[in-house]
């Protein structure tokens, strides 16, 4: 059993303590917006916010996540108002297949939280997600658009 606070809601989940947070979120809490890409903290598809920090949820256990405030892509918007990153992603048509984009958006949202006007170097350092479709050019442009708004 684990008690997790996800998107402001408390979930009591029947999982082993060493279950990766990613799978508890996807399979036990039923929030499938967070994606599996590698399971070894390499690709960033599973990125969520843990107490506001971008975290690869495949790389930590539910035991470690207990007591933390977890936000997934489903909880990024405030009510019906999309987060500015989601809005920019739509306006700039960033996603291709979209599979990596939940993680990409969560990583970018965390970056902008920390640095509202990131430089290209800041982006290079903070955004290390894999996108096999190759949306990087649009990702960078969209970040700068948000920053200059």
């Amino acid at each position, binding site marked *: 059993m684990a008690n997790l606070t996800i998107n402001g809601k408390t979930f009591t989940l029947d999982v082993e303590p060493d279950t990766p947070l990613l799978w508890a979120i996807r399979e036990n809490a*039923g929030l499938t917006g967070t*994606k*599996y*890409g590698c399971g*070894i903290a390499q690709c960033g598809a599973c990125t969520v916010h843990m107490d506001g920090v971008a975290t690869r949820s495949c790389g930590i256990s539910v035991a470690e996540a207990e007591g933390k405030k977890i936000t997934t892509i489903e909880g990024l918007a405030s009510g019906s108002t*999309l987060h500015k990153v989601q809005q920019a992603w739509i306006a700039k048509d960033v996603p291709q297949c979209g599979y990596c984009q939940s993680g990409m958006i969560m990583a970018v949202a965390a970056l902008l939280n920390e640095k509202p006007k990131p430089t290209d170097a800041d982006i290079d350092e903070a955004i290390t997600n894999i996108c*096999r479709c190759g949306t990087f*050019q649009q990702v960078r442009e969209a970040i700068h658009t948000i920053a200059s708004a």
Partner: protein
Amino acid sequence: MNKHVSPKMNRRAFVIGTAAVGTGLAIGLDLPFGGPAVVRAADGSPEVNAWVVIRPDDTVVIRIARSEMGQGSLTGLAQLVAEELECDWSKVTTEYPTPGQSVARKRVWGDFSTGGSRGIRSSQDYVRKGGATARVMLIQAAADEWKVPASECTVAKGVITHKASGKTTTYGRVAEAAAKLTPPTEVKLKDPKDWTIVGKGLLRLDTADKTTGTMVYGIDIKLPGMLNAAIKDCPVFGGKVKSFDEAKITGMKGVKKVVKVGDSAVAVVADTWWQAKTALEALPIVWDEGDNAKVSSETIAKWLAEGLDDAQPAYVGNKNGDVKAAIASAAKKVEAVYNYPYQNHATMEPMNATALYTTDKCEVWCGTQNGEAAFAAVLEASGLPAEKCDVHKVMLGGGFGRRGMTDYVRQAVAIAKQMPGTPIKLLWSREEDMTHGKYHPITQCKMTGAFDADNNLVALHYRLSGQSILFSVRPDALQNGMDPAAFQGVAQSGEAALGYSVPNLLVEHSMRNPHVPPGFWRGVNVNHNAIYMECFMDELAHAAGQDPLEFRRKLMGKNPKHLAVLNAVAEKIGWTTPAPQGVYRGIAQVMGYGSYVAGAAEISVTDGSKIKVLRIVASTDPGYVVNPAQVERQIAGSFVYGLSALFYGGCTVKDGRIEQTNFDTFNSMRINEMPKVESVMVPSGGFWGGVGEPTIGVAAPAVLNAYFAATGKRIRSVPLRDQNISFA
């Protein structure tokens, strides 16, 4: 294709319950014999024809048979239909018909296959006609209602007007009547110069859900009572399961069943996938690895190298003059050997499919690049007839050719068949995905160029040795044993023709097929052929003491379209003006998938081994550009896929198995390694070429040629990872 499918008209309502997954469609097909044949969508709205459903509120539902995997053709195809339909783009939405429905309706939606950059180019004609036909019928319905000649009515944005009487109506109001009309047998398509929707960089139709986590991919399917399966196939291709000790894991939490899948794989079925995977890892499995376990990258390389020897048999793909004589009598000759490795597609979403098998029905939910191939796989794996099977397509988390294969679909059905009545979601781990791919084929190439005393290129011998994709995937497409696709980019004519004229030319392929299964991998044979040819062209130019661009131009007089894109990148990158201090340039061109592409790179190199790709200029002539914003994204994305392949993409073989198991050993480039990509679109019209793949061909050679300009060193082996060269 679809040999196994015998199309059969089916009178029963074809209501497919996809509500559970929140996407897809449910069509009630009502096809009575004789009566008014109005076919209705699930919500009761009439089909004007197979491509167009119009709802009473004027929403236009456009049917898309090809698959969306990020390449944007769902939006592009909708643009083509909407252009001819003259509807209001803001009211357009799309849906996928299922392959089962298509087969039941005599393949009314045509080919579902989405590969070879064919999504738009090979269906543009009939989908535009679908839109035009619907428009004619809708106008006719309004004219009938007003009792005026249709020729006096006009339409714009879905509003029909009869000017003389001042009457107007909308598509939504006349759709019901239009659906009862007999379709016109001939329609005239618009002149491209009159396009208002096609040719515009409109936003994609499928973006919003991809930003909120609500888009459903195969991995996200949820069905009532569903269980999850993890699978392990024999690590050595061609090997078999000898035994497994089920007792060791039967008590584990959530585990429901252990099943053999075919003769080479074992799957664990559990409540959750994490439980299934954990149990599978604890399951002792004994494999019969067979003789292939003796194969390694070294043995493959040695076998391929033997194929470079002229004494070995080879298929001739392109030939003129007498290469051997011309080389023998040449003033100077240049020779080089290149090679290209196995590469995994590494789609972000690992392979998966969900299957529900009962004794009289088998349904599958999955991302697939070819709905009909997946459907045929379901028929075969389930043993049920066409009318009892269907495939519900969902968004693909990347395809790149991998999801044109149906191995994962067959596996899901094979597992579900052993648990009738229970939906089973099979998901491959990344490790399973990396080690059981359908790899970019492995090749080597020996090239010999010969010059006369005036440094004119008089002969070129291009001898390829290595794997054929068609031999493994579509042996029916071989021509007397020869794989014509092996010559993509260096062919005599057709959609992937060589852009150079050399008086004595011989392009040949010594086919050698190791046991590692190959597959169509974004760009396919263009990728290595473009590296070999374009890097060697650069070598020849330097051997002749000529500028690489000028050297090429002289050989391209008979190929003005190839030349035009090359000129376009040369001009945009400023080839004739010196590059900034410390910046070096490389250039390349190729034709593939019916399109002409060229690329130029600007790089800097530190310590001879750290490459910063600063800027890319890429030009393409695909005939027509349906959505320039999406073409631009495909071009930029091609450099991510192509440069990831160049720097990181190598799968090596040891003891018969692939050594790389995840992104830690099979890396992919990140945003910090991404160059600025500038696209130059020069559509010349009169033909339809593909977009998703051709550009990949020029990514690697443009950078490799720039690397030579910077260092004076030729790299003839991919990936750069293995040459100790990395991104700066």
